[in-house]
Structures are given as C-alpha cells and as structure tokens.
C-alpha cells in the first residue's frame, strides 16, 4: 500500500477552505463546522487544538486549511481533549486568542482543567462543544451546561448558522471582557445544517499581535491575589462576588466580578425579546430550538400574541428580560435541548419575584426530557399552553402511527457492522477463534471506544463492555484483581491508546494485572473519520511531516515482556502469535496493525472523499 503518499482526508461536505476567504460582506453557503471555524478565523484565532469527536471534528479540518493560508495560525490534532484544552489555555495565557472544539464527551475529559483554568482568568479563550440530543451519534445524552455551571463559565447557544459564526467571533470578545473561558454550545440538529452566512472582517491584527505572557502574575489561582493573601477557593468566591475586590484592585491586576459578567450578559442584544402589549403567553426558546419554535408559532398564527425571548446565553440567563416576560404573562413555555437547565433558572427567577406565572417545559412534562426536541413536540406543547391543536387530529394520529411503524422497522434494523475488509473485524475474529479453542467460555473481553466497539454485537460477540475512552485496560485489570479466573482480554484502538490508554497500561503493568491487551492499530482514528494521531503516518492536522510514535516501542518501554505486531489479514500468523501471547503471565500486548479498510481505499484514491 502506498502509505508514503498519505494525505489526511478532508470531508469536503463539512469542511472547506472557504472559511479563510478574506471577503468581508460576501455571503457563502457553509456548514455549522465551517461557521465555527470562520468565527474563529475572523476573531484572529492563533492556536486551535482538538481531539476528534462528532459532530465538531470538521471544524479542525476547515481550520487546518485556513492555517495553510495564514501560517501564523497553529492548528493541531491533540492526543486528547484535555491536552487540547491545556494547549489552547496556554495560548490564551500568552495573550493570543485560542479555540478548542470538542464533542460533549470531551468535556468530561476536560473537566479538571476546565474548572481550574477558569480560575486563572484567561482571556480570548473559547470552547465549542457539540451536545447530542437523542444520542444520535454518541452513547448517551449529556448536557454540557451542567459542567459549565460547575466550572462557572458562560454558555452561548447560537440559533442559526449565521449566529454560530457571529457569536463564535463575539465569544472571544466576551471572554476578553469578562476574563473567563466561554463555551459555544452546538446541538446535533444545528451541527448538520448548512446555510448562507455573511462573512465579516478577519482580524489579522489580533492574530499577529505579540505574545504577552504576564510573568508578573502567578498563574495559579487567578491574578486577583496579592501574595500572601489566602488564595484558595478564590474562583468560587469570585463567582459569588465574595472576593474583597476593593482592597487590592489595581495592585496586580484584577478579575471582573461575577456581577460584572451578569451585567454584560444582561446588556447583550443577542437575547432578543419580542413583547407584545398583552401577550397571552410567553415562550423562551434556547439556541437551536429557536428556529423550530418560531416556525411552530408562525404555523399557529400567534406571532403577535405571545412574548418571545430568544435566549442565546443559557448560562447565566439575562434575568431582567426573563422577569419582564414573567411579569406580563400567566404562563411561559421554556424550550431547550436535553435537560431543563434554563427552565430551572427561570423557575428560580420566578420564585424570587413571587411570580405566579406557570412555567412549562421539561419539568412539567410538557416537553419530554429524553430525545431530541423537535418542531412537532414544541408545537404540541405550545398548542396545549394556548388551548389549541397544533396539528389536526388525523394528522396527529398519522404521526403516531408512523412512529409505531418506525419502531417496528427499527427492530429489524441490523446492528452496526464492520466495513468490508475491516482489519479490526479480522483481528477480532482471530482472537475469538483462539480464545474459543483455548478457554471456551472462560474468557472476559473488555472493549473500549472505537470501531471495535462493534465486537459486542453478533456474530462476533467478543466484547462485553465498552465505556469511556481508555477505560478498557483498567476495567479489565479491575476484573482480574477482583479474582476472576477467566482469561482477561482488553481491547484498545491506536488513537485511544494515545488518548488515555497509556496511563492505564502503565498502571496495569505496575500493579501486576494479568491480561492480554489487544491493540487494534488501524493507523487512524477510524470511527470519527480518519484523523491522524501521534502513531499514524507521521503527519499533523496541517499535513506537515512529523515524528511517528511506535506503539510497540512505547509498550516495550513500559516493560511489557511480550509485545508482538501482527497483520490481522494473516489469519494463521495472528492466531499463532495470539496463542503465545495468551500463555504469558502478566500483561502481554499484541498489536494487530493494518490500515483501516476505508482509509486504505481513500489513500488509493479509490473512493470519493
């Protein structure tokens, strides 16, 4: 295979070099990922880092193209999300605008640095997070906003692709003003939209400005503290306006108070309020839901009778505007994706002002908590609040029936399958064969996150678990230490190995676990669309040649006694080596190395990009 000619693939459907075009005022039809990229480019972003994860991996691919045009821009695939976050945080600390997009699961990985990093008061630092209502592309529905609240940093939820571009840009400005990271939350429904966007000016001067890392500060707990004041818990105090700001204001520099953040947010025009004279009811529509809510309102023909608050800042919320809505209406419907996060804040505002307005939404069951909130769901809830039918009854019935049919059909849909020629399937089959022969049913297989997650489904049935990235080895070790008499197998993908598998392997060796680690090295991050990683092809996100780390050598350095690389397409060899590896006491590692079948074809130019 002509591996040396490898060029990282670009999904032209979702990523393009348009984002770098310096045509202010011109309109381009772009995707959500491109809009995020464009926002960052316009903001003069200097450092971008990320680990792949749907739906935002194409943002990096667009920015990688932009960096070839604006070479001062650094764009990287990092080895994991926390690494990416820390790299971008560092750039922000050095006074440059920095950006890290990730999938929601990435937030879970980032959380330690996220909470502490907010404390430092970084400026011009923006995160984009892709949440997945309905878990259409992920293993679970999770709501980033709780983590934002935990980390005490603001969240913006654009309502259209234009706004994605605009508010990404403005998020940098906001971040600089309030000295906090800012999160742009994207939900799946928005992530795969594409629409005309008017481009703005690119702030080259910001990108090209000088580094200004402040060595007078001690970047430990925020710059608000003149040593030796007790610094601990400062961020939490700051968030609640409990810092004795006055005493040292202006001495070493200071961070704005939380009340300042609230004020800024309150003043933002983004949270548009349409307030008729005598509204019959109110609607608060958050982010992506705004589009569908407006369509439902128009369909019902009640534009002029309801108060509409388009909410972009879901944390913190603009309380005054919410109060206005509550004052004027008897009932307010809150529409948002995943958790009743804004709704709970609205309830708190209502309680504080002794409002009698009924607040409807996910907490009251008017909108389901699980699965994507769709236009129909919104329309129904609106209709119910206004005492009218959203759709004619027959139509409703038809939809219900369709749902039943769909469910029935879904039950026939076969489980996800490996691509034809998948080397991971071949590797898994060889292992299953050998284990069957040697141990029968006395084998415990623990998977990890990647295409090889499909080992769990028939006909292979060669994996009993997969949890979060890098967890497989440690779960397997735990099962061993718990006293299992089974032969224990842990799988890991090559990208996952670099993501978080290495510490787990070190731990397994150090603490004398007895297991076989089967590295499914398909030379790419397969599941998310073939991004390179430190062990694949020696190439960076921006197509520059770099060092290629060898998993085999790393594992040897971890003092694993048995390490062998096999070609999973060679069944005999693979089974022979596996048999030997399985006999080894302690941790043994077999690396099944063969380029992902899809990627191989792409490299050979045999498939459309």
């Amino acid at each position, binding site marked *: 295979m002509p591996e040396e000619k490898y060029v990282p693939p670009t999904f032209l459907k979702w990523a393009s070099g348009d984002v770098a075009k310096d045509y202010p005022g011109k309109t381009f039809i772009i995707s959500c990922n491109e809009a995020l990229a464009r926002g960052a480019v316009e903001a003069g972003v200097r450092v971008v880092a990320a680990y792949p994860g749907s739906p935002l991996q194409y943002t990096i691919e667009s920015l990688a193209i932009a960096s070839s045009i604006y070479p001062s821009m650094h764009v990287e695939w990092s080895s994991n999300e926390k690494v990416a976050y820390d790299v971008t945080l560092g750039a922000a600390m050095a006074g440059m605008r920095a950006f890290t997009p990730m999938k929601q699961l990435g937030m879970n990985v980032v959380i330690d640095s996220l909470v502490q990093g907010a404390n430092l008061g970084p400026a011009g630092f923006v995160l984009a997070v892709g949440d997945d209502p309905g878990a259409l592309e992920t293993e679970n529905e999770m709501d980033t906003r709780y983590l934002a609240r935990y980390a005490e940093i603001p969240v913006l939820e654009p309502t259209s692709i234009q706004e994605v571009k605009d508010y990404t840009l403005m998020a940098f400005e906001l971040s600089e003003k309030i000295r906090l990271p800012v999160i742009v939350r994207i939900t799946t429904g928005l992530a795969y939209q594409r629409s005309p966007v008017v481009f703005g000016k690119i702030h080259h001067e910001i990108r090209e400005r000088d580094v200004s890392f402040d060595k007078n500060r001690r970047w430990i707990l925020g710059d608000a503290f003149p040593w030796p004041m007790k610094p601990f818990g400062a961020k939490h105090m700051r968030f609640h306006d409990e810092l004795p700001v006055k005493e040292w204001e202006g001495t070493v520099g200071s961070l704005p108070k939380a009340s300042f953040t609230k004020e800024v947010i309150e003043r933002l025009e983004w949270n548009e309020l349409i307030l008729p004279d005598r509204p019959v009811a109110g609607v608060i529509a958050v982010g992506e839901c705004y589009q569908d809510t407006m369509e439902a309102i128009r369909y019902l023909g009640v534009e002029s009778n309801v108060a509409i608050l388009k909410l972009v800042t879901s944390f913190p919320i603009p309380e005054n505007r919410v109060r206005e809505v509550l004052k004027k209406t008897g009932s307010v419907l809150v529409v948002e994706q995943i958790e009743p996060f804004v709704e709970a804040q609205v309830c708190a505002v209502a309680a504080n002002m002794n409002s009698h307005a009924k607040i409807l939404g996910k907490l009251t069951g008017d909108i389901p908590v699980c699965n994507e909130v769709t236009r129909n769901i919104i329309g129904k809830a609106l209709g119910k609040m206004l005492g009218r039918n959203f759709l004619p009854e027959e139509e409703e019935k038809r939809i219900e029936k369709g749902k039943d049919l769909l469910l029935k059909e879904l039950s026939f849909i076969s489980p996800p399958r490996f691509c034809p020629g998948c*080397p991971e399937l071949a590797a898994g089959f060889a292992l299953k064969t050998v284990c069957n022969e040697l141990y029968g049913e006395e084998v415990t297989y623990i998977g990890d996150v990647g295409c090889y997650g499909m080992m769990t489904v028939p*006909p292979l049935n060669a994996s009993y678990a997969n949890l979060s990235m890098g967890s497989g080895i440690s779960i397997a070790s735990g099962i061993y230490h718990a006293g299992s008499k089974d032969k224990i197998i842990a799988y890991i993908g090559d990208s996952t190995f670099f993501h978080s598998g290495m510490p787990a392997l070190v731990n397994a060796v150090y603490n004398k676990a007895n297991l076989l680690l089967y590295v499914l090295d398909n030379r790419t991050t397969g599941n998310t669309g073939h991004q390179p990683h430190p062990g694949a092809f020696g190439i960076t996100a921006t197509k520059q040649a770099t060092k290629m780390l060898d998993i085999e050598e790393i594992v040897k350095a971890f003092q694993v006694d048995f390490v062998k690389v096999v070609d999973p397409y060679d069944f005999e060899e693979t089974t022979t080596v596996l048999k030997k590896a399985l006999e080894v006491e302690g941790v043994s590692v077999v690396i099944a190395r063969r380029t992902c079948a899809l990627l191989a074809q792409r490299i050979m130019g045999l498939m459309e990009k």
Partner: protein
Amino acid sequence: MSLKPIGNQLRINIDACQAWNAKRPPCRSACPVDIDVPGYVTLISKGKYSEALDVIMEKMPFPSICGRVCHHPCESACIRNKIDQPIAIRDLKRFVGDRLIGERPNQEIKQTKKQSVAIIGSGPAGLTAAHDLALMGYKVTVFEELEKPGGMVTSCIPDYRIPIDIAEKEINLLLETGIKLRTGERITGYSKLFENGFQAVLLAMGAKKPKSINISGMHAKGVISGLSFLRDIKNGKRPELGERVIVMGGGNVAIDCAQSTVRLGAKKVHIICLEKREEMPAHEWQVQEALEEGVMLHTSLGPFRIITSNNRVTGLETIKCTNVFDKDGKFSPTFEEDSLSIIKADTIIIAIGQEIDIKGFEDIEITPSGTFKVDPLTLETSVPGVFAAGDCVSGPASFVEAVQSGHMVSEAIDSFLGGRDLKTLQTRRNNSPSLAEEWPIPRGIIRRKRQDIAQLDPASRKGTFKEISTGYREKEAVREASRCLNCGICGYCIENFGCIAMVWTTNPDLPYRVPEIDLALCVGCGVCGQICPHKAIEEIRDGG
C-alpha cells in the same frame, strides 16, 4: 459510495462450498431412519419445539419411545465426539416428544385406495408399516396375539426404560389415525387372510421364542426364561426369585433381566456370559447402569450344569470360556478344561437370545439362522404378496431398525400394489452418507460439556420400576441443543465471521440458501478465504 478492492476480490466456489452440504451430516447418516438430526436439534435450540417435532415425525412416528430406548448410533457419529462429547440427540428427541405428547396433531388419513393390507404383529415394525400404508391411503388391519399393541416395547422392555403409559399413549395416538387393530388374535398362516380379501400380508412377528441350551438341570424349578420373566413383570406380576439370582447371557435382554431382578429385591445378582467384556453385545451404558446397581458381572464364563436339590435350583457350575467366536467370526465357543467353579443361586434366568416362532408359516422359506428370507429389494418372502419386516427378518435387533424396516416394507408393499415404481425405493435407500472422520471441523469451536441428565441414583432404583432417567427440563434441553454444530448446513463464514460482504442467497440448483460474496462490497482483504473450513473461497485473479 462504492467500495473498490484493496487486493484481489474473492468468490465462493459453490461446488466446494456445497460439497459438504450435499452430504448428509454424520449423525443423520448414522440414523437408520434418516431423521434430520441437526434440523430438529437446531429448532429445539431456538425454542421451536413443535417444528422440531414435525421434523422428527417425518421419519419417526414414536419420538417418546425412540427418545428412550434407541441405541442412538447418531450420537456415536456426532462430530462433537472429536471435540468434547456428542450431543444428547436421543434425550432431546425425548424432550420434544414428551413435551408435546398431548398436543400432537392427528395426521388426517383418508382412505383413497381400495386394497387392504394385513399386518401380523404390532411391534414397532408392524405399526410403522401400518401407519405409512394408512397414510398412503390403504386399508390396514393389524393382528396382534397379545392383548396390547406394541410388541417388545409394551410387552418386555422394562418400565424403568420405557414406562408403559408413555408407550401406550404414543402407540394409541398412532393407531387413532384409522388403523384397525385386532388384539388377542394369533395368526397361523397367510392363506386365510388372502381369502378374506387382503391383497398383501406383512409378517412383523418379531423374535420372541427364547433360545435354550442343553445342560443338565434345565428343567428344574427356579430356571426361567428371561423373556417370560420380563413379560410377567410388565404385566404387573412380581415373581418370587429368592435372594441369589444368576442371569445367563451377555445381551441387553440379560442386562434388563438383571436390573429387574435387583428391583425385585434379590440380594446377590450375577450375570455370566461367554463373551469377554469388550465383546458383550449389550450396550456399554446399560452394562454400566447394571454395575452401578451392584450387579456382579462374570465375563468369559459359560454354564456347565445347573446344580439342583429336590428338583430345585441351588447353583450353577460354570466353566471358563476361552473364545466365543472362531476365526471367521462364527459363534463357536471353546472352554478351558478343569476350570469349573460354582455360583450359588435360587433362580437362574436364561437370556441367551431369541429366535423366530414360525409356527403356521412353515411353507415360507427361511435363512440358515431361522429368519424369514426376503428379496433384498422387494422385501417379499418366497410367497408372492407376503412380506416380512423387523426382527423376524433381521433376528433380534433394535427398536429403530424395526421402524426403519417398517418404512422400507411399506414402500415395497405400495409398489407391489401398484402405488409406486420400484426404482424409487432404491434411491431412498441410497442416501449419500458421510463419515465423521472425514467431516471437516471448523476452528474456534467452544468446548462445552454435555448437559447432564437427571437420573435416579442407584440406591433409590431398588424396589421401584420408575424410570432411571428423568429427561431434560426445558432450559437444559435448549442449552444442550445449542451445542449442536449444525453440521449439515455450513454457514460458518456468515455466521461466525460475519463480513458484511458475505450474504445468503438462493441458488436455482439447490434446495437451500448458500453464501455468496457481494462483489460490490468485497474489497479483497482475503480473510474469509483463510477461514473457510471447506477451502471453498478463492481469489478472483486478473482476467479470471
């Protein structure tokens, strides 16, 4: 998105792939009545019991009886023997048979033909033929000397092997399909039957005349015949035997006699037989059962004379047997001189074999061993229109062979009466068999122990004729059935490897689905070619 090759694409050579599918798998080949064993076992594993029963009933009208008494040659042929242990095929058959015994649909029988057939003997051979002929539309009458139909199954085989109520239930179900049965009627000649309007006569009289030997003391009190002993027990009698019993004989009947004796309370039960242990005609598992129950087995030992006092048995003088068979394998025992010894006994049971009772049929030609001589193809005896089947042709054999012979003779009679061409019989008997030794075993089969079958422990078997084996419960049956490798239908590539490019398809020349490689998907990784147990997957080379 279309996928193009990484290497040469592959295709399945359908001849090589199907070479093994075309053969009957070893278990089925070994089954005298050709039951589709993998078929019904797989159905059981999927919980489809009534479909499984249908598959069995196609060939075996007595699932519950066969599921208990059959000597299961299928299990000896099972491929699992080479990996761990064979599938418990017989007990799985019993499981579905028993489970659905109350709900078996009655096959509707329409009498479409004018001819009628007389069948003498209601053993498994006679009843099977009767059932087949009735299904073909003939009028069938079965004559049975005893009060109950069923032959050896209901008259001799002990209840701890096949309880009488189960056997009767199953036999009655079969008779209900419209077969006329006349019990208590001993037939002594065929001419009357022809005169009475039957167009064909089937002799299925079994082999029920006990063989005897000529040694002194044979007529003393306390010497009894094994068969009549078993028949008495089956009829509810409990003969007085005394404390010490000797059973003479090395076959299954002898073992059954010994085990029955244990159940009647005898303290010391001996079996003596001429054969060496490994030569004994009895099935090994039956011998084991008897040993478990405390029976003392003396092999290579022959009877010399029966010791009596006041014309009552007191013991048996025995002599060592050096060889039972001569060089040609013929029965011709030789004994060691000066090797006499005595075993004390109150009762001696003679179970050294049975022969045919041909009284009334002396004009029909017989073989040197005293069984009816039949044409191997037409199964007709020397008298036109008179057929024979079962033990009275083969000599004492087995239940399933009697059923097999019943099936074959019914076709032969049908052909005689003009129902079918003789040629069709030939193909039936000529199924393409296969041997376990040649059968390719795919890799990666998990060794799984055979599911245990609950059994009465040896101590609690004494004093009762309750069944030894209690059979599988549902869960156990399903688990056991799922061990089946389904040898007849190879889909190894699809069912185990599961590459998405491999799909089931139909082939106009074949009655079952076959695997195929979808060339729109195959990228030519070549893995399937390495794992196919039949080496039936080959690369498509350039230009080929």
